[in-house]
């Protein structure tokens, strides 16, 4: 053995390939945007950009939490129900003001996260079934709280959350952006972030290395619940109504897809925050394209299937689940 840490150069071709594998989702978005500019009327407009970003904001926020969970080799099916719970809680406490109402809604998300996290971390139930319980029960609870009713929201301050802008950028988008940066920072720069990917990569090794495995797992599910609740609050403000029966339906599938298309393997051990955002954007663009072109549901579903496959094929990084 001659020198230490021998640095071997990587050939350029390999680098392009790696880039494509890691960033295929960006390429897919690019292609979709170019195609849309070509075929969709009024695609290149501020209003359109605004619409897409505003619609994607809740998906992004939920996906961020989901990415963390998936990083630990888990999954959180309850996110849609958490959104429902948050939206159901809001009007109940609006009487005390917007602040307290939002706080309660977010606490609802935290509570769900605590239950999920405890089941996964302490009881060691498999995440998919642990979170399935609240996937089923959470929405029921939301409906019970709301008395089964959709309620219109008239609180101006709350509605502002959905409609006001900061220097021209809609508030939900600002929130989603800020949370993205925050989560990216957490993953990259904090002990917690490093530990969560290690746990996803090899739980036994993490235990033996003295990581606070259970605490980290608990926190991860709490964060996922919290972020889903944030998304629920924003969605409520935008809908101008609290609709626990349908808010966040199928959100878990969208979020998981966004995360996986963004390059985070379901086998855990890695989290790609920006990729996740890109994955969410891709989903949104696909949906928007299909709606704008008024394709019948049958065709739309099949096209969506093909595009998802094409996107992961381009981003073919993980052979894992």
């Amino acid at each position, binding site marked *: *053995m*001659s020198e*230490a*840490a*021998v*640095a*071997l*150069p*990587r*050939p350029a071709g*390999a680098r392009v*390939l*790696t880039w494509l594998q890691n960033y295929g989702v960006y390429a897919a978005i690019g292609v979709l945007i170019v195609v849309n500019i070509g075929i969709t009327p009024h695609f290149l407009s501020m209003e359109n950009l605004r619409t897409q970003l505003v619609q994607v904001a809740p998906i992004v926020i939920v996906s961020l939490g989901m990415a963390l969970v998936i990083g630990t080799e888990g999954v959180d099916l309850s996110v849609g129900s958490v959104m429902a719970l948050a939206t159901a809680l809001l009007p109940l406490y609006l009487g005390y003001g917007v602040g307290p109402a939002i706080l309660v809604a977010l606490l609802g998300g935290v509570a769900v996260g605590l239950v999920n996290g405890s089941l996964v971390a302490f009881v060691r139930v498999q995440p998919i079934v642990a979170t399935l319980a609240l996937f089923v029960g959470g929405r029921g609870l939301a409906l019970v709280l709301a008395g089964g009713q959709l309620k219109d929201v008239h609180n101006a301050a709350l509605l502002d959350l959905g409609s006001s802008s900061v220097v021209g950028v809609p508030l939900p988008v600002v929130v989603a952006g800020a949370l993205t940066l925050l989560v990216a920072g957490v993953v990259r*720069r*904090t*002990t*917690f972030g*490093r*530990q969560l*990917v*290690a746990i*996803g*990569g*090899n739980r*036994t*090794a*993490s*235990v*033996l*290395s*003295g*990581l*606070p495995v259970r605490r980290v797992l608990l926190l991860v599910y709490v964060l996922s619940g919290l972020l889903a609740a944030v998304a629920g609050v924003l969605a409520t403000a935008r809908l101008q109504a609290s609709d626990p029966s349908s808010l966040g339906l199928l959100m878990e599938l969208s979020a998981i897809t966004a995360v996986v298309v963004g390059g985070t*393997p379901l*086998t*855990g*051990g*890695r989290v790609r925050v920006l990729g996740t955002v890109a994955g969410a954007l891709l989903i949104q663009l696909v949906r928007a394209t299909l709606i704008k072109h008024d394709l019948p549901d049958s065709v739309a579903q099949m096209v969506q299937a093909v595009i998802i496959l094409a996107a992961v094929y381009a981003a073919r990084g993980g052979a894992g689940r």
Partner: protein
Amino acid sequence: MTVTKPEDRRPPHDDAPVLEARDIVKRFTGVLALDHVSLSLRPGEVHALVGENGAGKSTLIKVITGVHRPDEGSVLLAGRPAGFAGPLDAQRAGVQAVHQEIGLVPDLSIARNLLLGREPRRALGLIDSRRMHETAARTLTSYGVRVDVRLPLRSLGVGAQQMVALARAVSVDARVVIMDEPTSSLEPREVDTLFGVIDRLRDQGIAVLYVSHRLDELYRICDGVTVLRDGRVVHQGALADLDRLRLVSLMLGRDVAKVRAEGVTRFSGAHEVSGEPVLEAHGLSSRYLLDDVSLTVRSGEVVGLGGLLGAGRTETAKAIAGALPLDAGRVTVAGLSVRRGSAGAAVRAGIALLPEDRKAEGIVPTLSVRDNIALAALPRLARAGVVSDARIDRIVDTFMKRLRIKATGPHQPVAELSGGNQQKVLLARWLATEPKVLLLDEPTRGIDVGAKAEVQALVDELAETGLGVLLISSDLEELVEGSDRVVVLKDGAVVGELTGDELTEEGVMTTIAQGVS
């Protein structure tokens, strides 16, 4: 057990080669793992394949058995291009391999692992599980492994798993058997068993390709040798023509004089023992596994843990590190007692465990070398939960240099490193936590002679700085030379303790043989 002595070994058959690798080139992204490597095996020949960690030995084996496709070159079986599409193809053609990282399925039962793909059948081609268990039990007993074969493989220690893998490879009609570091976690006695098997294979005209970092083993059984360095063949010929020093110098690419000057084991001998017990374990007990084990390690002392496979050494280490649920027992570090059953508490108290099963319990395959090294030390490298990249880089750089970790850089995924280098990464992970006690479970397992010496020197050096070291090694020489004192375990209980003059290889063996728990 009789082991063939070199003198009564028959000369290699001079028939045509049964297996030949010609001009093999294999590249991985950024690494030229094999650079025009050729090798041929004759029937009845036991051929050694040696080289330092990352030299390309495992890669060559994987190319030969069809796991990897070579970028250039070809593999010939009995003179005809083999072109194995995969391991199954190779096995069909009679090329069996025992891979370095065991390569069995932990959750499958022992019997199923052993007989996967050739289970005894009944009518309709259905598997006859009764016969399967019988066959498995019989086969394994003949390798000295007597266990309930219906248990999952996971319940065996690494050594026993290694024996299962061996038995699996050998119990098929094979023309070539390839063994990648089969003895790295075997006891002297199992090694003897294995060598008996290899002798049989030789008598039957089966060719064996044998990879090991334990040089004395090579001299005991191998006829020919191929030395790899950085993916190139640097020497090929009869092993008898090479002396040990020359072999080492070829592997390391350093001249003989330098190697001689440095010696083969690097242990310096006795240490300055301060007398302050840094680690005390009292009455560790766990059903079936440990029975009232107590031991003390003083600051600056290296305590060896001796015993046969399954004696409970790994369990003892894990119990101390809080990773094994205990029925009774207490562990203190520097006088402070450590919360039982919590690995986190143990790490915070200054206990570091280098686990035996590197793949399952050590590396985090999705992370880079850097992140793997920093993992356990993160809390120390962070302020208010935010890590400092600069501090991590500094530590990682230090240890990559100090342990000579061979990687394209700190950001290479650790899964791409050779086995030995992964081991060094793990060692670095623990050293970065600045532990008070180091529990090393087979620390030199799969490590090349050069690195082994470095690790041994490091153990010495660490002990000198006041660290307490608990050393578990199946390599008796290493155990005896490296330790100030050896505690001998048998069936999960302490049966003896050897110090000073009693501390010899024979002494350890006798204690094991006579010990009653």
